[in-house]
């Protein structure tokens, strides 16, 4: 008797991605550059986050033609984004055989109250989080992987740093609590009690937590690994740089050897200019993607 879509199978897939870099791509050619550079997976999109930000309007699931083109181009896993709460976009991506779905705040939410019930799906999900409350709610809904939200499409690492520090500080606080304090902490965080209890017992989150939202350089990737990320998503940082192939390779190496500063210096030399960044305070509050999600 075999069982598909179990927690072990879904979370295990994310475990295999640890220490790796997942890159946003918009066509087969970019997907091949990413695979060649050593990406552990690619995220198939219609536009990278910085272009979504620039274009405005409603951002939706990518055209299935693009997703299919990317799936046919590479042998590494292919992820794709569905709007928050958009049951049908997620089901369509699952039916296409996408390996992982990102229920993503980068796209315009389809539901302003509810996220997807991710336990219902055979395909695993990744979701963004800024703090332990969001992380625990997403785990409660059945996500198999987490990532920081950061502020997508900015090339500015400050929000991702804030989010990973916050989640990890709250996990440490929880692990050191007495058990009789956890229910009140659950109330404060808006987090499911059972998920917090499991985190306390195991001393860590039950799923991997990657960095995302603002990684633009090899040093940014290494910084996030040092702060405790299990791996790195790079959105606009690669294909909005001067030389995507160079940036992709350098970010992979810096992620593997995030404590080897001589190596990071070496791989950062002469790779061209990083994407132009955005200062967070210049973004109007209603345009901040990290505030999407509930």
């Amino acid at each position, binding site marked *: 008797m075999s069982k*598909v879509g*179990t927690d072990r199978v879904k979370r295990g897939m994310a475990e*295999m991605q*640890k220490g790796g870099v997942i890159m946003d791509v918009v066509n087969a050619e970019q997907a091949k550059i990413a695979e060649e550079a*050593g*990406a552990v*997976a690619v995220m198939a999109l219609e536009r990278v986050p910085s272009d979504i930000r620039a274009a405005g309007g409603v951002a939706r699931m990518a055209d299935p033609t693009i997703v299919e083109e990317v799936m046919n181009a590479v*042998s590494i896993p292919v992820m794709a984004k569905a709007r928050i709460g958009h049951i049908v976009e997620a089901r369509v991506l*699952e039916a296409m055989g996408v*390996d992982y779905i990102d229920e993503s705040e980068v796209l315009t939410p389809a539901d302003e109250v509810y996220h997807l019930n991710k336990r219902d799906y055979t395909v695993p999900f990744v979701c963004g989080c800024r703090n332990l409350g969001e992380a625990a709610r997403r785990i409660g809904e059945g996500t198999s992987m987490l990532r920081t939200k950061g502020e997508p499409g900015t090339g500015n690492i400050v929000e991702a740093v804030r989010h990973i520090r916050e989640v990890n500080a709250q996990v440490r606080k929880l692990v050191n609590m007495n058990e009789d304090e956890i229910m009140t902490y659950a109330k404060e965080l808006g987090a499911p009690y059972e998920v917090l209890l499991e985190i306390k017992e195991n001393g860590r989150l039950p799923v991997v937590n990657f960095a995302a939202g603002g990684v633009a350089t090899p040093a940014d990737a290494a910084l996030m690994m040092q702060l405790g990320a299990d791996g790195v998503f790079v959105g606009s940082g690669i294909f909005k740089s001067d030389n995507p192939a160079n940036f992709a390779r350098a970010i992979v190496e810096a992620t593997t050897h995030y404590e080897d500063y001589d190596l990071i210096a070496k791989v950062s030399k002469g790779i061209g200019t990083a994407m132009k960044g955005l200062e967070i305070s210049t973004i109007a509050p209603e345009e901040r993607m990290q505030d999407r999600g509930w």
Partner: protein
Amino acid sequence: MVKIGVLGLQGAIREHIRSVEAAGAKGIIIKYKEQLTDIDGLIIPGGESTTMRRLIDKYDFFEALVDFGKQGKPIFGTCAGLILLANDIVGQDHAHLSLMDMKVERNAFGRQRESFEAEIDIKGVADQFEAVFIRAPYIMEVGPEVDVLATYQDKIVAAQQGHYLCSAFHPELTDDHRLTEYFVKMVEK
């Protein structure tokens, strides 16, 4: 206590270390080829085989890993590690370490939604072993010196050739450490 390294370039490294320690050996993460001289056996973990191969080349690990095996030191490859050990990969002109005489197919059970867990019997190691298959490969053919240890739906999913051991599934993702214990015994010999 024997020392078992886990190739630490990418993938499920922490889980293998935990499993090795549960099986009564010392686990060491191997990030640089110079560390190979300090260990008695090596696990090549699951992850993405293309990514691992790029990093193996980048850090000049290739010859060192082949030498490690040729010196008679045991190597255990799981999932991506199995692919790296094979000498023939379907659809690819070049194999990787080529230490085991077998032909393998990548992602042979399908994509992630087809990934599964099942109970299998591993000859001489464990009955009713909980095996987790994630975008797993399988072995299509083996050479005369390779001993088939387990099959699932007539596909070969675990094998041994002398001091080389491999599985298409992930023994490190469960609390059943019998296959890792078997490898630790191979190293102790």
